[in-house]
């Protein structure tokens, strides 16, 4: 597990089918990165805030997320076996699954964003009071608060798009919509407008990554599951790593 999240280059130690998963992720991330790199380059060329979007698309992040995700899924599976002998309903299983996936996602966020902390603490039902700490020092994954999250960059000099001026009449409308948005993003119901907007950008990227990861996982499972279980090189014992 440690090797998965290490800084090494594309892992060569994985055997064929898991490598396919990583390759698929890399292909997907490459294609999506190609699409987004154009946008990111437009911003990062001048202001360097492309880095703010890159973390969710980096290989390392994806790998760490996938490792966390699979672990969480395994736990869900085991717990569902252990807890209830008749299988829980499909919806409950799906929900437990989603919660585990969200937890894995939130852990991958390294505790720098509000929504990730909200997810983790809501799941574990802890009471957490907001403390303004200047900088996250060592990060035990959840218990830090950076009051300035690094996602938003202010200095895009070459801006091809500008926002229509907010006149007096439209501010309440915008406020209302921002409130709605705040309800959608976990943990941001009572935040101020810029905070909600920042959290929303991060949350969207995280969700996109989650969707990509789960899609490739589902492909992998259904691809090798629909064929014979021992076909396609997946059934035999994996070569030693």
């Amino acid at each position, binding site marked *: 597990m440690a090797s998965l999240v290490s800084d090494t280059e594309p892992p060569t130690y994985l055997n064929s*089918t898991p490598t396919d998963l990583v390759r698929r992720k890399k292909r997907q991330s490459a294609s999506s990165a190609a699409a987004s790199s154009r946008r990111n380059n437009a911003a990062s060329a001048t202001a360097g805030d492309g880095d703010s979007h890159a973390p969710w698309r980096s290989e390392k992040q994806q790998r760490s997320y996938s490792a966390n995700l699979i672990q969480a899924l*395994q736990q869900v599976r085991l717990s569902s076996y252990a807890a209830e002998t008749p299988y829980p309903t499909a919806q409950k299983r799906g929900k437990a699954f989603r919660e585990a996936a969200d937890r894995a996602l939130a852990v991958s966020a390294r505790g720098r964003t509000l929504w990730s902390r909200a997810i983790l603490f809501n799941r574990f039902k802890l009471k957490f009071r907001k403390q303004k700490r200047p900088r996250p020092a060592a990060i035990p994954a959840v218990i830090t608060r950076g009051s*300035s999250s690094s996602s938003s960059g202010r200095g895009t000099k070459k801006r*091809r798009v500008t926002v229509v001026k907010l006149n007096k009449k439209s501010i309440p409308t915008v406020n209302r919509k921002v409130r*709605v948005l705040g309800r959608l993003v976990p943990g941001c119901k009572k935040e101020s407008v*810029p905070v909600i907007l920042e959290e929303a950008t991060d949350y969207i990227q995280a*969700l996109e990554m989650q969707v990509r990861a*789960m899609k490739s996982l589902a492909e992998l499972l259904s691809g090798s599951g629909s064929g014979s*279980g021992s076909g396609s090189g*997946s059934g035999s014992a994996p070569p030693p790593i």
Partner: protein
Amino acid sequence: MSSRRSRSSRQTGASMISEDQIDDLVLQLHRLLPELGNNNRRSGKVSASKVLQETCTYIRNLNKEVDDLSERLSQLLESTDSAQAALIRSLLM
């Protein structure tokens, strides 16, 4: 970047949020959104409320996708035999 952020967050503490700041954030959000025939992107003007509306829709869609995928995945995981579980476990190590 962070210095500007801290200066503006001090303002935020006093609930004096500059419109420029909001504009920047809205722009960032807009860049993230999938461009579904979004012709305004090149024309240089973007309406904040429209961006927010699309963002809400997009987040809802993403959430729904994740729910569907997770349900499908949970079914798949339930129905797989131990060979697949070994495969998945091998991904971890």
